[in-house]
């Protein structure tokens, strides 16, 4: 499948008064056209920062993108997002790449109508008249499942429920026919029943519009029925990347195994204790020169404390950054 986004060795740091936070320490991944990639990790794993860095949507300063490349294969050839001018970047933000954020209660402007917030992005990118933009906004509201769009268009965000607000955010994200939609924990702030509705909505829109989707979450449970591929992140680095079924069936990184063990399952009969991962995530203030998971890992051996494990393809289309061969129960000897 054709690649739409190719990220290589992205590094982002935050220069705060307390010190340098090494938030993203070399992230590489590809995204195919129409594909859904889930990026999974706990708080502070760098999952949001790595994706927001691509379009410079992190606060700068204190944030700084230290290195990397992010080739976007848009309609007019590949462009490195990290090296675009501010003007070119603005054309892509909201145009070719749409965003949905975590908390719809704070992500919408409280004093502008829903209609205004949708129309402004349409007139910015699609060169439609205000009247045409309004027509399109009505269609968008209908397509994200908002009843009575004509009335809702004149509503303010505080007059809508959380689920409705998130639908408005989604309407904004897809308003200009993006090739990629980036959803940063779009269901975290919502009720469980509403979460399911939003996931279903994304599945439908993805099919209708053929867009690629990057879904950032800490919830492996949501990922199963939604994503094509999963990237698990830990300490600002990818720990494991695999197709979704492959990842659930053959997790290769001890961290992924830990995450799956912490997940409640309905399909397993026996009553099973949920297992938590001992310890806490690494302190990103200190640059780490070994495996960032070594402190918490049951399989760590001396090499894990000496080098950073690279991300290598262990099984077909399945990459992991670990020196230990879980399947054989011994350290790898294949040169990695």
């Amino acid at each position, binding site marked *: 499948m054709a690649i739409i986004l190719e990220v290589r060795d992205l590094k982002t740091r935050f220069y705060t008064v307390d010190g340098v936070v090494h938030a993203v320490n070399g992230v590489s991944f590809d995204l195919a056209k129409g594909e859904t990639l889930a990026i999974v990790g706990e708080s502070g794993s760098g999952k949001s920062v790595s994706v927001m860095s691509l*379009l410079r*949507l992190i*606060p700068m300063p204190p944030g700084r993108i230290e290195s990397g490349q992010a080739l976007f294969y848009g309609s007019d050839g590949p462009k490195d997002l990290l090296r675009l001018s501010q003007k070119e*970047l*603005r*054309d*892509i*933000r*909201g*145009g070719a790449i*749409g*965003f949905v*954020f975590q*908390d719809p209660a*704070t*992500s*919408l*402007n*409280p*004093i*502008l*109508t829903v209609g205004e917030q949708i129309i*402004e*992005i349409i007139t*910015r*990118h699609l060169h439609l008249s205000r009247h045409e933009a309004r027509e399109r906004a009505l269609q968008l509201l209908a397509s994200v499942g908002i009843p009575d769009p004509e009335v809702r268009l004149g509503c*303010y965000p*505080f*007059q809508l429920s959380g689920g409705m607000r998130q639908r408005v*955010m989604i309407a*904004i994200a897809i308003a200009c026919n993006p090739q990629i939609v980036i959803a940063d924990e779009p269901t975290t702030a919502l009720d469980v029943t509403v979460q399911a509705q939003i996931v279903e909505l994304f599945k439908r829109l993805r099919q209708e519009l053929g867009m690629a989707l990057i879904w950032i979450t800490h919830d492996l449970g949501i990922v199963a029925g939604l994503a094509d591929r999963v990237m698990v992140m830990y300490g600002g680095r990818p720990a494991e990347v695999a197709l979704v079924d492959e990842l659930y069936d053959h997790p290769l990184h001890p961290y992924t195994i830990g995450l799956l063990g912490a997940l409640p399952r309905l399909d397993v009969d026996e009553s099973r204790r949920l297992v938590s991962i001992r310890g806490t995530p690494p302190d990103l203030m200190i640059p780490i020169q070994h495996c960032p998971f070594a402190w918490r890992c049951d399989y760590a051996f001396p090499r894990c404390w000496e080098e950073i494990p690279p991300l290598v393809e262990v099984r077909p289309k399945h990459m992991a950054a670990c020196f230990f061969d879980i399947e054989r129960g011994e350290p790898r000897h294949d040169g990695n």
Partner: protein
Amino acid sequence: MLRYFLIRLGQSLALMFGVLLLVFMMLRVTGDPAALMLPREASAAEIEAFRERMGFNRPIIVQFVDFLSKAVVGDFGESLHFRTPAMTLVTQRLPATVELAATGLLFAVLIGVPIGMMGGLKPGSAADSLARLLALMGQSIPNFWLAMLMILFFGVQLRWFPTFGRGAWNSVVMPAFVLGLPVMGQIVRLTRSTVLEIRSEDFVRTAYSKGLEPPVIYLKHILRNASIPIISVIGVQFGYMLGGSIYIETIFAWPGMGQLLQLAIGWRDFPLVQAIAIFTSTVVIALNLLTDLVYAIIDPRIRYGF
């Protein structure tokens, strides 16, 4: 919206009643009004005649009803000094004070808001240093001292502006600048801190993620949300400014209400002082009501009663 407006209007009227009551009491309940209003050497017969003429010998409640019914039509009695209706004297002075206050406010807002915004959008930049310096200076320089320095330098040395009075078009420049400076300082500081806070709100990130142009984000998304506290300060300060500034009108011999008030106090012209106090209070209350209405126009959450 109508309910909100009616509640605010009711509160304003209650407040107005309180002000009238207070002003009425100051003269009649805290001592003998005849003794306050007449010269010290007045004879007992003169005082009695005065009481009779002013109605001070009637029951206090009757006097208050009489006072109220006259107050609502703007009748506060005759000035003891000029022997003309006090309210007419106030309204004669009004244009000069409005000119001064409006010019001063315009200057404070037109300079204060953009500089405060630049500071809040780029903290730590050169523009921010300027904003913080202006805020500090505006709020700490004593304006009577600045007024005298300006008269010496721009009036006497450079002869750019008249040193006193209200005459040529440019006579308003110096007093308005001095009057507006502390307000500008306050507006700079408030705009800066509010913009700084709102700049990092989630919805501003959303605005950036839509690819909107920076001026649109700054004005439509940030400034509009920051404008509520700024407008409330503008409302309150304009109220004070319209009351007339005693210092500045006196230093620049500006023929406004502040100067009139200073003279009236000197002459012990009680009806005139009363008229100015009530007029000024009315203006402040009316401006507060107006400010509340502007809030509702800007923020739908207030309009819909959230």
